[in-house]
């Protein structure tokens, strides 16, 4: 026993010291990290609903909105109610996080009009698609296509859309385009159902 202790005392001591150090780091950064996450979502939500985001000289976003997380029965769905800053005034809209798989995990944030009838914006939260191909889903032109009525599920086509609910796929990036479209359709469908059932309750 003594022999063993002789050998491992250093490991034990180091573990204790480092454990404490890590605990301290975690404590001191935890809040900031959470804020960072929230801030990112808030920025994107403003982009998706209001459509613009002004930054000051330091790069700090000037927010016009606040987010209120919706308590939904569907626990897999993360959605926010978008309210004007300070909570005063009518609801700006909704922000929903859509999740799916393109070539890798994809997270998007979809902005919806207050009556859930229109998609007001689409932002990419997390993507690791192929640069130059799939990553072009981040492009403004592609995302702008999604700003349309949410009444009918969107359809992806490969040539110039002829109908309103059609979205044109990116050349050479069909899978990523498909994934985004599918995520939008699912998320919008789910959130509508969830909010309506919430309202009923």
């Amino acid at each position: 026993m003594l022999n063993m202790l002789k050998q491992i005392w250093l490991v034990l001591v180091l573990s204790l010291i480092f454990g404490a150090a890590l605990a301290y780091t975690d404590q001191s950064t935890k809040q900031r990290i959470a804020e960072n996450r929230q801030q990112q979502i808030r920025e994107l939500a403003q982009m998706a609903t209001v459509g613009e985001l002004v930054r000051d000289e330091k790069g700090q976003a000037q927010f016009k909105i606040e987010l209120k997380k919706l308590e939904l029965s569907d626990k897999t769905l993360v959605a926010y109610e978008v309210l004007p800053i300070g909570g005063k005034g009518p609801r700006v809209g909704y922000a929903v996080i859509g999740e799916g798989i393109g070539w890798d995990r994809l997270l998007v944030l979809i902005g919806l009009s207050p009556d859930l009838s229109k998609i007001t914006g689409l932002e990419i939260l997390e993507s690791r698609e192929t640069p130059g191909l799939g990553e072009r889903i981040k492009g403004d032109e592609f995302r702008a296509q999604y700003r349309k009525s949410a009444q009918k599920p969107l359809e992806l086509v490969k040539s110039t859309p002829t109908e309103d609910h059609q979205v044109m796929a990116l050349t050479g990036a069909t899978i990523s385009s498909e994934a985004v479209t599918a995520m939008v359709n699912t998320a919008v469908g789910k959130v509508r159902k969830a909010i309506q059932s919430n309202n009923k309750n």
Partner: protein
Amino acid sequence: MSKSNLVSQFTNGLWAENPSLVMLIGMCPTLAITNSVANALTMGMATMFVLVCSNLVISLIRSQLQAHLRILVYMLIVATFVTVADYMLQAYLFTMSQSLGPYVPLIIVNCVILARAEICAAKKGPVTSFVDGLGVGLGFTFSLTLLGVIRELFGSRSILNYQILPDSFEPWVVMVLPSGAFLTLGLVIGLVNYLRSRKRVEA
């Protein structure tokens, strides 16, 4: 430890034993996150921070190291500093930490750090080890940034997101892809070898 020795210990890591261009270790971050200068710089700095800290700590406790437990102790130390670095990045450079993805935690298994711990820190005093960590870390940052500059310039027309090449220049997507990383690394290593061989001939 004399001053000139310290200087040579420092420059050694910068050039003669540059981890990614000469020793060819730490290839994972070298290839994966050098698609932009900002990424490369951050990664290099994070690695340097971990390297310097772990070198210092290992050097301080080197007399107490049990030979068969040393790797365990190294990992313990390295993992701690990597976690600290990761948290710091997430807290203060959030977007950067997002674009680096899992590569910051992966510094733990970067052989550069383990190699320096084994080669230098476990044998030499804290001052030397500190300087060594600084030199190797800077060398690593340098080579990563070099690759980042080339790849970002041709792959996205810009350096540090500041557009350099005109719009008429069609970006070479291949440069920001992993295949572009291999190509660039290969060419840079070729160039380095050519320079080294010329130096040797002259000497």
